[in-house]
């Protein structure tokens, strides 16, 4: 199996069709990330994942190949989610129509969405990355291009809200 970096190199050399492998590989991951950050918004999660792939492809030349592609893609996806959440109202009327476009391996975990409801968008992103995906503080800071101290303080404020 080709590594992410090999596919990135092939894409930069040979064209966009190689990028399809990365889309297939990370489609579910980005969709899940979007679902969790948006609190179960299917349409928003789909749009965010597509925008993330589009942006990743556009800025692929700027990707530092010595770093982890998944982390880089996650950072882009979180930023896309943040942008789309600012205008989340436009999704509410279409939400019912696209409900069937995805599946999950277990029954709907509404409890999780209820749990993170008191958090603001930024706190939700950090909480999901830290406690669901179990990334370290430094990894999150690198992904989102913020200081580790800021991540720490915002996370502890978020956790305090949930208590």
């Amino acid at each position: 199996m080709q590594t992410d970096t090999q596919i990135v190199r092939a894409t930069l050399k040979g064209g966009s069709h190689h990028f399809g492998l990365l889309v297939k590989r990370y489609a579910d991951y980005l969709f899940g990330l979007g679902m969790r950050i948006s609190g179960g918004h299917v349409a928003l999660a789909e749009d965010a994942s597509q925008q993330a792939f589009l942006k990743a492809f556009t800025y692929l030349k700027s990707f530092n190949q010595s770093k982890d592609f998944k982390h880089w893609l996650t950072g882009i996806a979180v930023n896309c989610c943040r942008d789309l959440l600012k205008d989340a109202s436009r999704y509410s009327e279409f939400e019912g129509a696209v409900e069937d476009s995805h599946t999950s391996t277990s029954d709907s975990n509404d409890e999780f969405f209820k749990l993170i409801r008191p958090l603001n968008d930024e706190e939700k992103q950090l909480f999901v990355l830290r406690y669901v995906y179990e990334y370290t503080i430094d990894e999150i800071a690198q992904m989102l291009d913020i200081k580790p101290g800021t991540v720490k303080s915002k996370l502890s404020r978020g956790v305090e809200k949930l208590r």
Partner: protein
Amino acid sequence: MSAFESILSAERSKVYQQRNIDLYTYYTMSLIAQAEAERRMKARLKILGSMMLISVALMMMPFKPLTASLASYLTRLDWQLFLILALVGYGLALCMAIGLRGVRLAFR
């Protein structure tokens, strides 16, 4: 805190899946192809626009006075001196090229 942990571990074990991954990939790739085509089109339009601007500028240039001044300059030119200077110039360039080649070979 145990309820908190159980909700989190349930969420961690949950896997979200696109129902039709091939369709999703196809659609995403078509979006990428569309964006690529748009970028290429913009680049072509920029080149075309600058070429049109250059050609318009060339057409608007006052050619007659320019050609007249060039013709008068060429008639006044001392062709003998011009050829000597050209020969000296080419000779110097040749010497420098040979010298540089020697330096490059020496450092290989």
